[in-house]
């Protein structure tokens, strides 16, 4: 209310001074602010907000690709509740998002503490360890695709030469192993993100704090517990929430490695929505699968927002 009042009074002032000219519009804060927001906002409305609501509508219809269906209420959502593949998908997604994050956080902490040491070649080393996070995931995942291959896997070769196994491991074909394999590739990709964020947190701690504690007789473990951990709690929390959101809504890593197989044991919401909505052309049902992510994503987004607001 207050906002619109200021808007109208300044607009009135403008008219008194001699009508609407572009220059005046661009010099007045209220109108200029809105004009500057327009180009970006327009893209976000047409290609993000509108599709979001269209998705809600599609999920309430029996649309197929190329044919707009009619309203069927919540049938798509209800049908999914009794779909055993969907149950499996939900379980897989939870494992994929929740199990990988603690590993990424712990390995990331280790990486950050190593990088925080003064050493030679620290800049090239920093650049090198970031690579899994930087390069196109679909392409680096192809490397893992071969590392997990039943015939050419270097891991199998190594274990075989050491005499630990007699037959090659079928990392992606074995239904019990597949989810662990895709989780490993995801952890590999996420460690540098945690590493570099935590490193920034570590570097914000003044050196003197560690030195003073050491002089007072605190050993390395106690310094870790009482100085390091409290100083990085915030960044770990933020990185963790972002990582959960991104992993939960992942697509490409699974698509490249398994396409959801074997026997749907690695399907996550994104890949299952793709399979039903595009491959099987049942776009209404697919939209419903994708929307099942929304409440869970919202919870984590709101947690993140609350935390950032409090800071």
């Amino acid at each position: 209310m207050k906002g619109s009042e200021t808007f109208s009074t300044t607009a009135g002032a403008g008219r008194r001074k001699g009508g609407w000219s572009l220059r005046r519009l661009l010099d007045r804060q209220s109108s200029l602010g809105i004009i500057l927001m327009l180009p970006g906002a327009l893209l976000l409305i047409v290609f993000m907000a509108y599709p979001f609501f269209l998705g809600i509508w599609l999920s309430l219809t029996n649309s197929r690709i190329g044919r707009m269906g009619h309203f069927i209420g919540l049938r798509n959502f209800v049908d999914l509740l009794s779909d055993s593949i969907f149950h499996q998908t939900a379980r897989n997604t939870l494992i994929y998002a929740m199990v990988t994050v603690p590993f990424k956080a712990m390995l990331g902490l280790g990486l950050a503490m190593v990088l925080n040491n003064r050493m030679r070649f620290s800049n090239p080393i920093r650049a090198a360890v970031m690579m899994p996070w930087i390069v196109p995931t679909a392409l680096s995942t192809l490397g893992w695709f071969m590392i997990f291959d039943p015939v050419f896997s270097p891991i199998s070769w190594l274990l075989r030469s050491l005499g630990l196994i007699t037959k090659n491991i079928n990392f992606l074909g074995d239904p019990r192993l597949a989810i662990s394999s895709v989780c490993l590739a995801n952890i590999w990709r996420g460690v540098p993100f945690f590493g570099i964020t935590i490193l920034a947190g570590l570097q914000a701690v003044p050196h003197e704090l560690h030195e003073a504690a050491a002089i007072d007789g605190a050993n390395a473990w106690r310094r870790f517990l009482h100085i390091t951990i409290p100083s990085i709690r915030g960044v770990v929390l933020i990185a963790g929430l972002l990582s959960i959101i991104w992993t939960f809504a992942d697509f490409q890593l699974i698509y490249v490695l398994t396409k959801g197989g074997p026997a749907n044991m690695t399907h996550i919401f994104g890949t299952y929505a793709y399979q039903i909505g595009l491959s099987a052309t049942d776009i209404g049902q697919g939209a419903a699968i994708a929307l099942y992510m929304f409440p869970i994503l919202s919870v984590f987004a709101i947690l993140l927002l609350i935390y950032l607001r409090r800071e």
Partner: protein
Amino acid sequence: MVGSKTLGRQVLTLYLPLAFFLVFLLFPFYWMSIVSLKPTNDLFQLKYNPFWVQKFTFENYLYLFQKTEFPEWVKNTIIVSVVSTIVSLVCSVLIGYALARLRFPGSNFLGVGIFLAYLVPPTLLFLPLSQVIVKLGLYNTYWALILTYPTQLIPFASWLLMGYFRTIPKEIEECAMADGCTRMEALVKIILPLSVPGLLSAGIFCFTLCWNEFLYALIFMSSGAMKTIPVGTVSDLIKADVLFWGSLMASAVLGSFPIAILYSFFVKYYVSGLTAGAVKR
């Protein structure tokens, strides 16, 4: 760092963990590179050590350029990434400036809205968005990607630039405006030149994400010659026969290379951009 350390302890607490991380994080790249440099038949030679190359060859790379649509994919990826980055940067500079400097109705609300947009994943939108793209006649054109990528980039880039603009003292542009500059002139002539590091961070962030994007490029580009490198490699180079590994890895290496180089040159800017959101706020 604290006190003096013996060499033995340094090996245990620094070099051993460092070696572990380097091997774990870089091995897939090493593996991709050596496979791309081997003749295909060597993969089947069980007596060879697979961790090294017995006979170097560039035949996989030649195959890529002569027998596949790889050169087209490179062209497409460059066009889409460059244009999309420019569109995103322009929009983000304007939004970031408006949110950092101007008081206008709804600015708080819009600020939160932009932040939430950062958290909306493509998997939530891709099915309805594909219908929008078809309806607008953008399917299988560059515009499908050029116009949709910014929605993934503008939120973070605006946020980053807003933070950067706030570090520039208001007095500088107020002086310029007192001397007769308009606000827009002050933005272009005074603020932007002072914001080059922030613009670089945001630009590298945008370009990297465009280059790496997978889901939208997979769905919105149907013909082989319109694909981007990640999608073309994944969907067109994996064939039914088993002889594709060399060219597949060669394509993955070449597709990662520009990003790796760009990143190595601008590592400082990328890291400051990446951590700006999470750490500095």
